[in-house]
């Protein structure tokens, strides 16, 4: 595989501008590398979401390790937030419980470090923007990089408002995963692709997180449009809950993102149930008929 760390060639970095940084600004994208490892095996990547601190920090570390050992290529740890406008009821309930249990934002770095110490999976943090602003964009980025994190998925941050994050992610070598939606215009797709690093997150439908019986056909078109706008890696999320849906999306996307179904499994059956579902979901990554079992 080629080792272009960027989603788009137009975002090539300029190493050496931040010589005091503990990280190399031109360091390869951890997310891109994880997706490319899956691609080298002839399959799409599996990206699994769980919320931090649900029900406690140690469980999140254990759950993250279990995800990686059962087929997740990238792990997305969500920061519980008081006003999660892009989340449906299952994730809302989990993050509300995490906050009620005393979750603190600074524990996200312990969680990321705990998972990256034990696995090779790329670990991203999914966060609404205000908790990052409150800690400080540079400070958050520095600590995330030090913990071994790959970068951030930012559901309520668009490139136009992201100047601090563009700067900090460049400085610390972190991936910037912005979202594109079926409603995004070609101009916005191009702008978002250019600002992204690692991969672009395509939301499959117009809606919030939650399992759905069918994945909208608009997702495939959105992936094609996002690629046409210059993206090297496009992953699809929202509403994906079973191996059949994973298989369908893996047929056209570089990665498949699952959240709500995993959170429900963790809620109902703890880490063992989470591990079982991850194994099942990963069986959908290979083209139909190629399963060994």
């Amino acid at each position, binding site marked *: 595989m080629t080792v272009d760390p960027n989603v788009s060639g137009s975002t090539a970095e300029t190493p050496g501008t931040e010589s005091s940084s503990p990280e190399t600004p031109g360091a390869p994208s951890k997310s891109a590398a994880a997706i490319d490892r899956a691609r080298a095996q002839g399959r799409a990547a599996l990206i699994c979401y769980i919320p931090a601190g649900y029900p406690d920090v140690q469980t999140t570390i254990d759950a993250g390790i279990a995800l990686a050992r059962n087929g997740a290529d990238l792990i997305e740890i969500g920061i519980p*937030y*008081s*006003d*999660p*406008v*892009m989340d*449906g*009821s*299952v994730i*809302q309930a989990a993050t*509300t419980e995490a*906050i009620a249990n005393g979750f*603190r*934002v*600074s524990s996200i770095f312990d969680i990321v470090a705990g998972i990256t110490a034990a696995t090779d999976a790329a670990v991203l943090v999914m966060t609404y*923007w*205000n*908790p*990052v*602003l*409150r*800690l*400080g*964009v*540079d*400070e958050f980025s520095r600590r995330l990089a030090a913990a071994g994190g790959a970068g951030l998925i930012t*559901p*309520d*941050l*668009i490139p*136009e*408002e992201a100047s*601090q994050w563009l700067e900090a992610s460049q400085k610390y070598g972190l991936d910037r995963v*912005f*979202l*594109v*939606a*079926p*409603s*995004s*215009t070609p101009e*916005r797709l191009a702008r*978002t692709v250019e600002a992204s690093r690692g991969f672009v997150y395509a*939301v499959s439908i*117009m*809606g*919030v*997180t*939650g*399992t*759905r*019986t069918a994945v909208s056909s608009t997702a495939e078109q959105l992936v094609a449009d996002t690629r046409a706008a210059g993206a090297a890696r496009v992953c699809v999320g929202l509403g994906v809950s079973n191996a059949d849906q994973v298989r369908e999306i893996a047929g056209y996307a570089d990665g498949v993102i699952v959240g*709500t179904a995993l959170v429900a499994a963790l809620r109902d059956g703890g880490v063992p149930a989470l591990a079982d579902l991850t194994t099942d979901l990963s069986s959908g990554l290979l083209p139909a008929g190629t399963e060994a079992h």
Partner: protein
Amino acid sequence: MATTPAASPQDHPADAFLSGATRPAEGTSIDAAAGPDTGTRADGAAGPAARTGSFRHAAGPYFGSYGGRWMPESLIAALDELEETFEKAKVDPDFLAQIADLNKNYSGRPSLLTEAKRFALHAGGARIFLKREDLNHTGSHKINNVLGQALLAKRMGKTRVIAETGAGQHGVASATAAALLGLECVVYMGAEDCRRQALNVARMQLLGATVIPVTNGSQTLKDAINEALRDWVANVDSTHYLLGTAAGAHPFPAMVRFFHEVIGEEARAQILEQTGRLPDAVCACIGGGSNAIGIFHGFLDDPSVRLYGFEAGGDGVETGRHAATITLGRPGVLHGARSYLMQDEDGQTVESHSISAGLDYPGVGPEHAYLADIGRVSYEPITDAEAMDAFQLLCRTEGIIPAIESAHALAGAIKVGQRLTADQADPAETIIVINLSGRGDKDVETAAAWFDLIDAETAAEASAEAVIRAADTAADQVSAAASGTPSHAAEANRRNGK
């Protein structure tokens, strides 16, 4: 639009305290463009005299370093469509004529400017004038905005509007506009607010709206906004989000202000006509800040006019149970805009508290954040007790029952009147305009309980029953609609399918 803000975002030092650092000390000017004697929060009205350029008609998306679009990508196309439609409409004579006609012949504008002579005796003897938004159709200023936005929704070809509401005033106004213009209307209202404002829940239902009680989080206005945003993401093709205050993502703050500018324009002309000169001060209550920005608009470029916004101080700002966002908040992003925000050390939104449902919001419109920083407007907290004292005072001195929201402005004006007349030989030389943003019919139960006129438990039980009925009705309507229109089906899926 040739407005020139005195301070551009680039030179605005507010950025220096973006990431949760402490705010500048009280009285410290943080506006490089303002002189050393200007821009203090405690004495805000002094600043703009030395400034050039207009504060009126600020177009957004940024007000200083505030505002913007901190929103999911899924909604950006809808915001772009709304902005484009609004920008065309506001220079379209047909649209402006439509608004003017509805304002005059439906809402009852211009609203009166009433001198409150007996109330004024309690405000140091200053002359007090009330801008009577309480006399508008539906009982508050909210009608100005909903008519404008509902017309825009029609222009965009949308058939459904959704709204959040705190006190119920915006929900009632939205349901009214939807009924008038033939739009489907769904109103999200915190379950706690449904309890406090049971009569307004019934009003919305009478007007044909579906009211959905929101049980997430603090069950108040912010959670209703969250739920409305989730609805909007899922139904954006058919639906306009009729946001009720001058907050949220661009173009909402500038657009909502535009529809309320009529308050300030009327008030300015009326006070000149009645007194022959500009007032010394203009007072308004601030939740999200739409009635305040509407009346301030008329006077922003009159440097001699001091502007005061009164936030909900709840049990007192020292208790932590309040909604004094500008007084004690820090810059952050919530519901699409960067502004002052009540938040904890982790950036989690802190639940606000106020006897007034309409002010019970932990954020504030971004234009107010900017006007606070540059010192053009002074923002001060008013406690529940102060507001209720002023509420009773207006009832008994003027025969006007105000909304509890507006009572915060009345209480603030009493303080301002006493301060401004302190050294004056003739206190009647001081003129204060108060935006009486709404009437108190909806608050009779709350006030009666506060003043021990009725048994509070009985009142609470009656309200709880009303909420249960509202929830049942909403559930029935949603399930009945599941096999109905596409937007309803999508909503039912969204609510049941996770």
